């Protein structure tokens, strides 16, 4: 039966094929496991966060639980300096991290895309921190930043930094210290994605440009970069969302300290819900974080004309 159908319509687009081997329910059966898992463990929790955000909900103070209207939101915006501090720090963290990771990742990808002796090994070594977890990254950099035995002691020997205090416990150095640690792991992500996209640039374009006498820098601006644009827009967006949400590294490396100067909004939310058990307020903050992320993403995609025809 299947044969007959297949022979009857040779080059039809997939949608019109109704081979009898394909019951109409098949696509639904195939997406059912994924859909059920996502409904149960993403959609339902998201909805309950929205619900709790309108509630006063604290398991340790049950007598105060109940509907709270927009009190939680009002409190966050008018009466909670920590909310603003952590939001500003999150923005700074995401901006600096994604910007630097993109810059170094792009440069690295361009370098290891060249043909040179030892390229395979070079690529493997350059990309290797990608596979390292946030917690392990913290463990490694805790060793490096240790004031007695870390690499910073040797840097102090040559005049960089000072003896005695760890870079992680000084409020003036902790930001750069954490940025460097996260860069170490984050740059390979961009390098890998950009390198993958570089594989699909047509070699003919470069050859034509070379015939026309275009310099390498011109080739980069007029061929490579336009080709990479969509990949760059998408990977920076995904990475920004990821950097915003990810708490592994800062939670284990600095714990949000010293004196709270490296607390991101998600870390603050985690502390509010896990340590302070203030689920209602934490849910309201989570809702605000969602809205901010969604809004920024839409604006970013609009501004960058993602998928536009100008490529």
């Amino acid at each position: 039966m299947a044969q007959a159908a297949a022979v009857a319509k040779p080059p039809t687009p997939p949608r019109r094929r109704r081979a009898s081997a394909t019951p109409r329910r098949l696509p639904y059966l195939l997406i059912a496991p994924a859909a059920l898992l996502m409904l149960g463990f993403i959609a339902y929790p998201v909805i309950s966060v929205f619900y709790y955000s309108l509630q006063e909900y604290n398991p340790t103070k049950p007598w105060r639980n109940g509907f709270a209207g927009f009190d939680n939101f009002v409190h966050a915006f008018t009466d909670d300096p920590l909310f603003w501090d952590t939001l500003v720090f999150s923005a700074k963290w995401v901006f600096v991290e994604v910007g630097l990771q993109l810059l170094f990742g792009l440069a690295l990808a361009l370098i290891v895309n060249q043909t040179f002796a030892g390229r395979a090994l070079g690529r493997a070594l350059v990309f290797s921190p990608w596979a390292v977890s946030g917690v392990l990254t913290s463990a490694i950099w805790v060793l490096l930043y240790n004031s007695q035995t870390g690499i910073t002691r040797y840097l102090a020997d040559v005049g960089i930094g000072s003896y005695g205090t760890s870079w992680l416990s000084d409020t003036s150095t902790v930001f750069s210290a954490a940025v460097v640690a996260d860069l170490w792991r984050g740059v390979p992500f961009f390098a890998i994605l950009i390198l993958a996209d570089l594989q699909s640039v047509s070699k003919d374009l470069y050859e034509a440009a070379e015939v026309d006498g275009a310099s390498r820098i011109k080739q980069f601006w007029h061929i490579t970069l336009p080709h990479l644009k969509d990949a760059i827009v998408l990977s920076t967006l995904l990475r920004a969302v990821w950097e915003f949400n990810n708490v592994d590294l800062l939670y284990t490396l600095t714990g949000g300290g010293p004196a709270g100067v490296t607390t991101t909004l998600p870390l603050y939310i985690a502390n509010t819900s896990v340590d302070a058990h203030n689920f209602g307020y934490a849910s309201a903050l989570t809702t605000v974080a969602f809205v901010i992320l969604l809004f920024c993403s839409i604006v970013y995609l609009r501004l960058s004309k993602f998928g536009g025809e100008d490529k």
Partner: protein
Amino acid sequence: MSVKEATKVAPAPVSAAAFESPGAKKKRNRSWDEVPRWQIYLPLSIYLVFTLIPFYWILLFSLRPAGSTSLVPWPMTFDHFEKVWTERSFGTYFQNSVLVGVVTLLMTTLVALAGGYALARFNFKVKRAFMLALLCSQFVPGALLLVPLFEIFAELQMINSLGSVIIAETVFQLPLSMILISNFIKNVPYSLEEAAWVDGCNRMTAFRIVVLPLLRPGLIAVGSFAFVHSWNHFLFALMFLNNQEKQTIPVGLNTLMGADSVDLGALAAGGIIAAVPVVIVFAFIQKWLITGFSAGAVKG
């Protein structure tokens, strides 16, 4: 650098290439008129120093005796590893992490393969909505859903069971994995499957014989992603597993770091144990990763 300059620097290979087939010449030409060598090796070496010193540092601390300040791991000792593996229960953590990683890999790949096939090959009513949901879920931070997730797993009596972590990891891997896999499947011409039907295969057999082998690089990329992610991920295990017997390696590492006086040797050895499986996976999949990604990842 211009063609003229390049031939000045390296005249021999270019002229030698002139005698070879046109294809070979083109290839040879490119590699020589590209960038001067130092512009590759200098920045690459600087970056490699930055990448490799941290690895060396942790290796050094894990192998040199406690209290030593030598910059080479000599005399070498494996005491830290023994201590961490037995006294600090990294043996148990390792087993748990392997279990979580492997089951997450299998579940993610299977569920995403089924869903990805449906998205790539059929048009059905809720398809657009479903795709939109997949994309939106990228913005949903698992970390911020900890409380409701905890309540769900408590309801299901799954707190302190590895199942809770496996489900949570799988669910948050699924959207991206499914989008990737459906792109890989779209790259396999539908006519190949149709040809197999003509030869008498049913849809399942045709898929298994014709499509599946072509998906190998993509599936390896997606599967190893799922493994490495769940191996590395920390927060779900920290929240859902209170029992020390059930904890995973990242939680163990965090405990070592949180101790009042950090045992740097033990921390380093624990870190090495955490790194070994992902390094092996990474070395194995590296070449698939680039092909897998360029086959369908970033461009939808």
